[in-house]
């Protein structure tokens, strides 16, 4: 399984904080996962997840480009951070 998390504005816009997805044996990468989420949930999700400044993290580390995913990974989508 893959755990997918959404935070802050993204969480509110999608109306979803987290979901679990099976990890296919054929393998999956971050871009494929995002495309799958957009297809399954419709254009509302696509508009949000494809935003220019969307941040993606895999296993709590921000990923700049694409990357392969492995069963058990934790993926997160969130807007630019505003702490401090």
């Amino acid at each position, binding site marked *: 399984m893959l755990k997918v*998390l959404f*935070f*802050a*504005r993204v969480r509110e816009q999608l109306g979803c904080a987290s979901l679990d997805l099976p990890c296919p044996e054929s393998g999956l990468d971050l871009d494929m996962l995002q495309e799958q989420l957009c297809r399954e949930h419709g254009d509302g999700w696509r508009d949000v997840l494809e935003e220019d*400044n969307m941040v993606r*993290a895999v296993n*709590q*580390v*921000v990923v700049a480009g694409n990357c392969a995913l492995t069963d058990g990974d934790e993926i*997160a989508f*969130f*807007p*630019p*951070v*505003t*702490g*401090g």
Partner: protein
Amino acid sequence: MATVELPRPVISVSVQEADFDVARLQASLLSGAAVEGAIATFTGYVRCDNENRQVEALELEHYPGMTEASITAIVNEAAVRWPLLSAAVVHRVGKLAPGDQIVWVGTASTHRESAFSACEFVMDFLKTRAPFWKKEQSGASAHWVAARETDDKRADRWREGDTE
């Protein structure tokens, strides 16, 4: 040339709802051996206005686990750049009101140069890397605070080998 082995700095990172005591935190940076010559600290507060909006309350959301890990990574990077003896970071989450303390960063070293630089470095990267998000409440409306471009620029300064 003899290489001097510096002890690993004592690092503490806490993400919490509770308020914090700056005097107690500062004291926690001291070893008791009187080797520290300098402590630089930074405290962030909730302001009553932000970009011309009245702020009545602030809600701080974070990514549990990644928050602590990313702050620890930032402090460790500072400890590679400057000879730190100890460092501590506390960041609050949850509901905060104007005047409340949000964040505290403290760095101890033998001399002030490294304490100041490390403290500012940690704040600059905490602002741009640690997964916290602020939501402001003004009357009936609430909105997520947008990231400041100037924060990215400040963090970028450190990439150019500027270690002073």
